[in-house]
């Protein structure tokens, strides 16, 4: 692959490109899905190809192909240059990429058990075993399970001398129970509602213990059918770890993407309220709120050796003691602020350009035991496991729903609540945070389905959180 990559780089130089990079990517996914005791899907997905990105003057062009031959590399490279020439017809500001990037090396996700070394029989037995336990509850209408194994081999080279090779392993899976009665549908998922996914091996699935949680989620789905509806009021809200992870993704991760701030996602993913004058001065949250972008976290879906511009993985603060302290950046956007990229550029595959994507954006642990947080709350609602998520294009006004909720009365978890929702305005919400769980309750979640860009790219991101408490939040926004 090195020979192909370097051929593309040489060709772009000859054609006058100021900068070029090439990625050759092989992606293999193996997915297994079961439903109601049967194998619903068993698939092997493989994709290979390369993409060439060039900067000609101050104009970008990109072309990609599934055919890896010398002739096709020459054709596609010339097309990328031709496309950049067309971009120059509608020109923008001068492009500064900052200091050259000359990374050299290789990286492989640490795995204890290669997910592709585990037999399909073993994987099927695990899913069908959990499925059978869910269906022991006769009121469950649909039981589902899935596991996914990913291996992505990436070669990156640029015209500044960088050359890195990476092999990323991902493993994910989930189970769910759906109960239906009359007009009511209730779902409980495990580990959470977006297939929990990590960078790592099959050991993650073994540790997750699907079978051990199957009967619990079945019983909870059925109990939700007759549970009390979430009340409609302003109250104290305690969010479980996985729902708080989703809250971080939507209301901290996305607004901290510097391309959104500069308007380059304005027509699709949207913009951001975290405009540049707010950097290092804006009170994003209470002093308990510390948010960090970290592409070195063990098992995170945003964990790698280098990003798709060859910038090494790093850890940077986004919010420190409640103050907005940093962005997620590319080389081009960082240099606009006189900064250096913190390595957030990733592409879905060989046929897409890299965009600024969250790595692992997490809320640092606080000091609270979960039981103490509940015990310290007179009146409120505890919500967990995302069911619905919506936020405006500036990442300000949000409304989220969860699969399950519990009333909190006089320091104790009370009756089960269904159809729970809560709503707010991002900085008001984070400023109302008065308790964050400690490291014992902190967990790194994977979000495998983050969409951005045109053509649309789906990316996996990681978010760590312990439960958190928020005061005076509007809950029960339903009809």
């Amino acid at each position, binding site marked *: 692959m090195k020979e192909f990559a370097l051929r593309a780089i040489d060709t772009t130089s000859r054609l006058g490109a100021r900068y070029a990079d090439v990625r050759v990517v092989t992606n293999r996914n193996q997915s297994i899905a079961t439903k109601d005791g049967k*194998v619903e899907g*068993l*698939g092997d997905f493989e994709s290979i190809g390369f993409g060439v990105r060039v900067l000609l003057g101050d*104009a970008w062009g990109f072309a990609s192909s599934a055919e890896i031959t010398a002739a096709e590399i020459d054709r*596609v490279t010339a097309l990328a240059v031709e496309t950049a020439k067309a971009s120059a017809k*509608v020109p923008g500001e001068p492009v500064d990429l900052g200091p050259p990037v000359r990374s050299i090396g290789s990286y492989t996700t640490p795995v204890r058990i290669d997910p592709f070394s585990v037999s399909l029989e073993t994987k099927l037995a695990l899913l069908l075993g959990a499925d059978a336990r869910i269906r022991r509850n006769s009121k469950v209408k649909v039981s589902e399970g899935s596991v996914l194994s990913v291996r992505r081999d990436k070669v990156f080279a640029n015209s500044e001398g960088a050359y890195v090779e990476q092999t990323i392993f991902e493993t994910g899976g989930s189970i769910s129970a759906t109960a239906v009665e009359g007009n009511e*549908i209730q779902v409980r998922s495990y580990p959470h509602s977006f297939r929990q996914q990590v960078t790592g091996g099959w050991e993650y699935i073994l540790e997750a213990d699907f079978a051990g949680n199957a009967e619990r989620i079945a019983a909870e789905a059925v109990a939700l059918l007759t549970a009390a509806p979430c009340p409609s009021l302003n109250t104290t809200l305690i969010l479980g770890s996985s729902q708080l992870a989703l809250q971080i993704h939507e209301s901290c991760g996305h607004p901290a993407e510097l391309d959104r701030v500069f308007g380059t996602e304005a*027509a699709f993913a949207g913009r951001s309220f975290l405009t540049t004058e707010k950097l290092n001065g804006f009170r994003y949250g209470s002093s308990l709120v510390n948010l960090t972008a970290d592409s070195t976290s063990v098992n995170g879906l945003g964990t790698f050796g280098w990003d798709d511009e060859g910038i090494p993985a790093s850890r940077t603060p986004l919010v420190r003691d409640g103050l907005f302290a940093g962005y997620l950046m590319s080389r081009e956007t960082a240099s606009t602020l006189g900064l250096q990229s913190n390595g957030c550029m990733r592409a879905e595959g060989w046929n897409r350009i890299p965009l600024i994507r969250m790595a692992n954006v997490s809320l640092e642990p606080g000091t609270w035991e979960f039981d103490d947080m509940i015990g310290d709350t007179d009146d409120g609602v505890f919500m967990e496991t995302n069911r619905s998520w*919506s936020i405006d294009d500036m990442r*300000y006004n949000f409304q989220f729903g969860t699969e399950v909720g519990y009333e909190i009365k006089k320091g104790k978890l009370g009756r089960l609540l269904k159809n729970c929702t809560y709503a707010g305005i991002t900085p008001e919400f984070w400023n109302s945070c008065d308790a964050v769980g400690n490291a014992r309750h902190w967990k790194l979640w994977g979000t495998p389905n983050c969409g951005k860009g045109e053509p649309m790219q789906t990316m996996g991101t990681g978010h760590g959180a312990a439960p958190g408490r928020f005061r005076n939040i509007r809950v029960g926004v339903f009809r």
Partner: protein
Amino acid sequence: MKFREIADTVLSAAKDAKSDETEVVCVRQEESLTRFANNHIHQNVTESNYEITVRCVVGTRVGTAVSNNVRTESLRGLVHRAAELAKLQPENPEFKGLPGPVPIATTQAFDRDAATCTPQARANGVGVLCRKAQSMGYTAAGSMTTGVSTFGVANSKGVFAEFESTVADASSVIMNGKASGWSHASGWKLDAVNMESLADEALEKVLLGQKIAECEPGEVTVILDPFATADLIGMLAYDGMSGLAFQEERSWMNGRTGQRIMSPEITIFDDGLDLRGIPLPFDFEGQPKRYVAIVENGVCKTPVYDSHTASRRPGLTSTGHAMPPSAGGTTGPFPLNLFLQPGTSKESTVEEMIRSTKRGLYITRFWYTRHVHPRDVVVTGMTRDGTFLVENGEIVGATKSMRFTQSYVDALAGVAAVGNRLRVLRAGGTTISVPAIKLNRFRFTSATK
């Protein structure tokens, strides 16, 4: 490589792999997208790709393998992988086999101008739009896409279907510090996308938005541009126009078929042969796409089916709505060519709908809509890029973007008017063709800051 060669290679390898039944689906795609923001082109991309999906059936067991490599050895390997995956499974008595050949109607959705559109031609169009915005001191962002694809399906029972089509699509938001406006157009002909008209449409909204108005949350009459109407139809599709969702009792159509649940003005149908949309004559099993009335004059009729869901109940046949196997298993059938029938009422344009409105909101589009309750299609979301307060038949100013939580089924029960002009809008692989619409009641729960 031609689809016939791919199909022959796969089906002949299937005999060696001891696959009882075999299907191959091929999507060959050449698509380019020019993206602009801050009045200049900042991303400009081209992709050349295949997706070959092979399904092997051994007994009643099905294995799937997908690749983008069309070399002969790779295709043979793909068949063997799919067959091996099938053999590892327990039998699935519910699987009734691949469908056989059924005559497919001919239609056309290929435009040479769209197929051969160059990066320079797209830049010319984008330049027109950006310069128009810039000349007024405004900022434009958006994209323009052109492409050509070949879609083929063949199986060992004699199905062979192939269709070449093109696409043209463009959208833009134009903004200044106070307001933004949106426009979007799609079609299979390049001339479906007129960048100057798109610029004018978005600019009109920006100009309307220069005067600010306040609207408290609550229940109000709404006039929806087709971009917003498309969200209603899209969410109804997502939440239950599939025969699978209906069989699993997850659909809003459960318990409602045969009942008048929406206004008599509402007829929603799927038709892959309707030339007003972007035609597609067959599905991912090579079965002909049939006209399906989902809601007819307000009466809930039937969901769409593929061969698997149709085989579960006597008397049902595939309506030609099979989808490709996905990573998470079978997604079930889905309508890809949706229409909301244009109205015949007196108020056939947005202007007329506004004139007859005492108090309400005129909405350009919805954003980030998500389900709160799937069986009633209760949805929450925001308005975006142009929300205007209407009083006494006139637009009095732009409000902030508003959040709503509303049952789409209930909203379509109270229809004041349906526009007479269809707008073709492509989102992912789905085409939704809809007019503007006026709804009596829509519930808003908050405004953004």
